[in-house]
């Protein structure tokens, strides 16, 4: 397929220093391809850290790697409708009828599979816990969604006025944390402009293979 060949060449360009050959991988099973694609993205320092080898294969359900798996399974594409595939090369067809794009076009808010009230409560809880403990482990989608709110809270604390303090008290669940944050943020983040968190991706969760990440205050 033209698509899988294009995919294989781009990933080959990414991991040119890697010891696998992309030709053997692109002709292999789709599941093997997605494993190696995701493990490359996870930690491609395998040339200097032999401990991080393929024994730690990680199933990152990144849409990019799942797309290559679907392309070889999908009978429409395998029949070789070249105009169909070239026009909609960014779209994968899932058999339940919806369309998933490989890009983020038009997605403004991460919904986290929850109605708006629960979503807000989840994000409030996550920011409270992150500010309380300094480093928490959650799923990747939640970690990247909570970044915005943690940065907002730290920005409120940097301002420091009463109005901002009350706004922070209305968002964070525990009063102590708000007061502690307002007290210490100047010396901790005084010079830093934004980017107060860091996300480190980690191994998937055992129960449901959800991709996990540590999010920590920088």
């Amino acid at each position, binding site marked *: 397929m033209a698509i899988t060949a294009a995919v294989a060449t781009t990933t080959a360009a990414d991991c040119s220093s890697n010891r696998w050959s992309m030709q053997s991988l692109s002709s292999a099973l789709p599941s093997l391809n997605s494993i190696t694609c995701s493990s490359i993205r996870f*930690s*491609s*320092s395998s040339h*200097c*850290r*032999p*401990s*991080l080898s393929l024994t*730690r294969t990680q199933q990152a359900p990144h849409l990019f790697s799942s797309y290559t798996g679907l392309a070889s399974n999908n009978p429409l594409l395998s029949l070789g409708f070249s105009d169909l595939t070239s026009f909609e090369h960014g779209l994968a067809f899932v058999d339940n009828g919806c369309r998933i794009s490989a890009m983020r076009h038009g997605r403004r808010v991460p919904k986290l599979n929850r109605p708006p009230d629960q979503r807000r409560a989840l994000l409030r809880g996550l920011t409270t816990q992150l*500010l*309380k*403990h*300094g*480093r*928490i*482990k959650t799923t990747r989608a939640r970690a990247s969604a909570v970044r915005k709110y943690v940065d907002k809270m730290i920005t409120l604390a940097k301002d420091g006025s009463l109005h901002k303090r009350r706004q922070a008290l209305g968002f964070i669940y525990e009063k102590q944390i708000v007061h502690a944050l307002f007290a*210490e943020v100047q010396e901790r983040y005084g010079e830093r402009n934004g980017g107060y968190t*860091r996300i*480190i991706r*980690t*191994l998937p969760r055992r*129960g449901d293979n959800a991709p996990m990440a*540590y999010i*920590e*205050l920088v």
Partner: protein
Amino acid sequence: MAASVDPLVVGRVIGDVVDMFVPSVGMSVYYGSKHVTNGCDVKPSMATSPPKLNITGHSDELYTLVMTDPDAPSPSEPRMREWVHWIVVDIPGGTNPAQGMEILPYMGPRPPVGIHRYIMVLFQQKAPLGLVEQPPTRANFNTRLFAGNLDLGLPVATIYFNCQKEPASRRR
């Protein structure tokens, strides 16, 4: 996206505890049957006794191992950075720390709050060190200063893992 993919840089081990270095010696750490890789999760109950550590390298080279926790007592307020857990000197290459001299006895991870990083740093010694004096307290240890005092230079290997307090009750 992290600017670098090296797990030690992403996890801020390089920067908080050690400086940028080129790893030249292989080190494999095993807690029981669990092989420790950078950033993996280890439970405190599994880490109560010293790990099995194997170092590659020449048998006529001596190495020093330091295990510290830069996130004591909590990652959001590391007032006691770093808390040193284990110091072993004069480890011959190709063996394990049991063959070296234990300056500071092993203390297992006991993170009270949050998720802590535990970092094992291996230095190569230029000369046998013999009996090094114990640090007066485990808190507020500085790996760089320690290496500078003993003239150890840059590390040759580093591994870190994460550890958090286990909940009292079984969850899921």
